[in-house]
């Protein structure tokens, strides 16, 4: 029987297609029975979804941009 530490690692291997048929069966059985591991997987599905789109919130200030422009004037 696969334990939780092994199961959380197997989730990643499965996502990359690196799990044998028998390991996939073991993982699926484990996930049906084990709520914490099921949650671990669900949480990572959400994280991965968020990671697909970087946020627009980070911005350079005008003074940062001016620093770059000044540098260009100095060096070019």
């Amino acid at each position, binding site marked *: 029987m696969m334990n939780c530490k092994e199961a959380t690692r197997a989730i990643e291997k499965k996502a990359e297609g690196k799990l044998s048929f028998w390991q996939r069966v073991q993982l699926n059985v484990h996930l049906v029975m084990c709520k914490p591991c099921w949650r671990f997987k669900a949480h990572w599905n959400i994280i991965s979804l968020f990671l697909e789109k970087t946020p627009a919130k980070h911005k*350079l200030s005008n003074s940062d941009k001016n620093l770059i422009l000044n540098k260009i004037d100095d060096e070019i």
Partner: protein
Amino acid sequence: MLTKEQLRDWVNEYSDELYRFIIMRVQDDALAKDLVQETFLAAFKSRSRYKQGSEPLAWLYTIIKNKMIDHYRARQRKPTHSLDDQPHIDAVLFDSKGGWKYKPASRFFSADMGKAERDEFWDILRDCQGDLPEKQRLAFVFKYLEGWDSEQICKELDISSSNYWVLIHRAKLKLRQCLETKWLNA
């Protein structure tokens, strides 16, 4: 060929996007700003390679990605940054039989969260990334932000594939735990 005036326009138009890209990939804000600046200067230096009318941002991304990799490589050569000397997260989270000691909570970020909460997610993620040992952090960035495959990551970090699985596994355990803790306590 790219002119100085054009380059100045590019700074106004594209520096935010480059900054946004790099700030999630390096830990230090001053460094992120330096890399953005260097990218524009490097673009001008190799301006003979820019084809008028082609997409400037794509070209600038290529340059800043190379700068980022150079930076990682330089850091990797310093042994203090590549040591994975914190207690291993697997020993913290799991007992000796591989069962959870600290189970994932039922409350977590959810897929239908609004903009404000997503922004919060990115702030916390940046924080949590900073807590990862260097190699774990890089494995995470290359895999999840750059979309590299495992062969590419092993090559870049000079690690075996079994090492790769250990790094990614630990990074995932630690990041999830950190996101949960910081979010629930926010």
